[in-house]
């Protein structure tokens, strides 16, 4: 029994030591700018430091691909940054903005709101990219959000050994990923600083998927937790004294009546793309996203709105 207990104890100590050591290594490695994967938009945003912009655009892929930023800057006479990213709901965006504002400054925030991000569970294959924020655990907003959203983090094991959290999302923090980031660090390219918009001209995808129009536009409910994080975002912007406007990005056959009703109580200026030709398939990449032609049409319309709100 004595030998069994000694061996068991040594094994447990070694295991805890390994988890602790590897976790501490991840804390360091995955927050280093040179090891962030700048080809991934969220990480590119998290890598920004010391920036000073007039405005930032925050939202999901619809906001990410809705603007030609150079054109918008020239039309408004301001310098902006697009920090929207694919698949981001309000939970993601709340943490992205919170971390972004820790080392950057902006004057006002342009927030994209739509039916998808108001019901992220129904709309996104991954409603919350919690793993992206694990290395920023020491940030109180990150920690409290992760503990609220990921039940497994709200227990004693994470309190006693927070380094354990990396193994919960081991796919993203494996030695293989460390090696990949290490190799990438030598050939990193900044793909988004002069980003003109992602989706190309093709609207073939739209034609292919037009049968799904009813399904895509059927989400007419607001998830309370998404509403909560939208309000958190607004509070965060107000606490940082940011001016705030919101907008709804154009979607093919977009019906915004539900959003117009629902968003009234937010008491912030909101732009609805009523003057945009959302029946013209040539302006869309797919049902929910503009293509470059659509972007070129939409950017001036939005510039007019935003200029009137400054």
């Amino acid at each position, binding site marked *: *029994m004595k*030998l*069994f207990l000694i061996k*068991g104890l040594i094994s447990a100590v070694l*295991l805890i030591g*390994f*988890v602790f050591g590897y976790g501490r290594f991840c804390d360091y490695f995955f927050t280093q700018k040179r090891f962030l994967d700048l080809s991934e938009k969220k990480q590119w945003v998290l890598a920004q430091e010391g920036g000073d912009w007039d405005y930032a655009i925050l939202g999901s892929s619809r906001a990410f691909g809705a603007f030609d930023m150079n054109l918008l800057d020239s039309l408004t006479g301001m310098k902006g940054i697009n920090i929207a990213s694919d698949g981001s709901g309000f939970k993601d965006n709340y943490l992205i903005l919170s971390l972004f504002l820790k080392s950057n400054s902006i004057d006002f925030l342009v927030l994209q709101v739509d039916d998808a991000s108001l019901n992220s569970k129904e709309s996104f294959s991954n409603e919350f990219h919690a793993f992206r924020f694990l290395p920023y655990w020491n940030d109180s907003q990150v920690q409290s959000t992760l503990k609220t959203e990921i039940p*497994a983090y709200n*227990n*004693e*094991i994470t309190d006693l050994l927070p380094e354990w959290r990396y*193994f*919960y*999302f*081991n796919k993203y923090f*494996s*030695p293989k990923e460390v090696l990949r980031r290490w190799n990438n660090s030598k050939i990193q390219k900044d793909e988004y600083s002069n980003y003109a918009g992602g989706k190309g001209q093709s609207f073939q995808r739209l034609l292919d998927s037009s049968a799904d129009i009813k399904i895509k536009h059927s989400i007419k409910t607001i998830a309370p937790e998404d509403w909560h994080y939208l309000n958190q975002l607004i509070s965060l912007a107000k606490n940082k004294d940011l001016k705030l406007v919101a907008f709804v990005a154009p979607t093919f056959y977009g019906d915004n009546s539900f959003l117009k009703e629902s968003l009234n109580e937010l008491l912030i200026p909101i732009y609805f793309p009523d003057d945009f030709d959302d029946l013209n398939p040539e302006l869309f990449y797919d049902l929910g996203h503009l293509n470059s032609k659509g972007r070129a049409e939409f950017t001036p319309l939005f510039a007019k709105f935003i200029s009137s709100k400054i």
Partner: protein
Amino acid sequence: MLFNSFEFLIFLPLVFLGYWFVFQKNLKLQNAFILLASYVFYGWWDWRFLGLIIASSAVDYWCGLRLGQVIARRNDEAISNGGEELPTTHHLPLTTYKNWLKGPKFYLAISLLFNLGLLGFFKYFNFFIESATDFIKLLGFQAHASTLNLILPVGISFYTFQTMSYTIDVYRGKMEATKDPIAFFAFVAFFPQLVAGPIERASNFLPQFFKKREFEYQQGSDGMKLILWGLFKKMVIADNCALVVNPIFENYQTASGLELIMGAVLFSFQIYGDFSGYSDIAIGTAKLFGFDLMTNFRTPYFSRDIAEFWRRWHISLSTWFRDYVYIPLGGSRVSKAKAIRNIFIVFLVSGFWHGANWTFIAWGGIHAALFIPFFVLGKNRAYLDEGRHLIPSLWEVIQILVTFGMVTLAWVFFRSESMGEAIGYFNSFLANPLKEGFRISLYQLPLAAVLLMLTLEWIFRGKQILAFKFPLVRYAGYVGIVMTILFFGAFFNPQDFIYFQF
């Protein structure tokens, strides 16, 4: 409480220390402690259903006592009448109803009715109501079904079978009735195997509660190896396979042929990793407390024919049905036609045991249909050895692959929610055999993990898993498995053990 949960990580060492350091000197106290720990383990899931285990244990304890008394009295009467001691299964003729009420069959019937009644109510009530309604509608009559919103108590199929084995064995005179209620209740509720087996036989397991238990290093070490291996099979194999398999079965209509094949193959490994992983952890945990549970799986996917598969898959259930259903029906010592009927019954009942769904019955029926040709040709006991060669012959490889293929086809029924879905799965494959949409990158992790598992199981088949000869290799093996679990275990998407639902 799940074996792969934080709660169990705290629970197990506490119970281990209490068991060996606080209560070791008194066997009765040790058994009481195990019983208490088992009820805490079970109650953690839902304490309300503790009443069912206690009731089942109490009824069978009482039936066992009464059976013991009746059998002993009849033997005494036979001896005092100058005759020899009667075999316990030989009873006085049932001339009157009163006589029957005093006889052992009465107490056996109470035990069986109570346990099968529990099982029938919680597991099969809705199925029978719905099936009857469907049948009435099929005849052209109006029918409205009123089903109940019942929660299936975890482990009910396992502990009711285990406790029934006790009364049947006492009835058959294979063992004496116990007069120690604590030991008996602990035998029924023993936490390592309470919710998903192995389904222990009373004659093997109950006597272990009466023996003084000493901690043996080797037994404890073997237990830890099994727990580690079980966690690997559950968290790396089963849970990673589930991440790929679930979307394929949910969207089989649009999946490509290759995806459907991959879905079926990986489900075979998912259910094996899940269930045998649970059994390994259960057997390993029991060893930590000085108990030996029966082997439940012996590398079933290395079987060379379907008969060998059934000697290696879920052994505790298949031998239960053999001993308590197949043999009482006459087994193979009857005419060929009756023996075939018996085989069919056992496989169908075995399928039905898994759940109230026609898919399970179809699964049992397919296995019966695959097994019977071997039985008819007298080839059902062709492979009783483990296979001795490190490198299998080409013929063996072909046999193993063909057997695995047949088992995998049957698993499609087992995994499907309905017969329509199972048939749709095959139809979809025939309609889209070469449809595009297959991305090998999705399958790399589960396939690599399966390959690692099969390699190690092949090397250690018939032996203690991970028992490397050289210490350095052995420790490297342990570290390797732990690292594989840490870096490839599906911690974020843990799946419930599949057999909990049965």
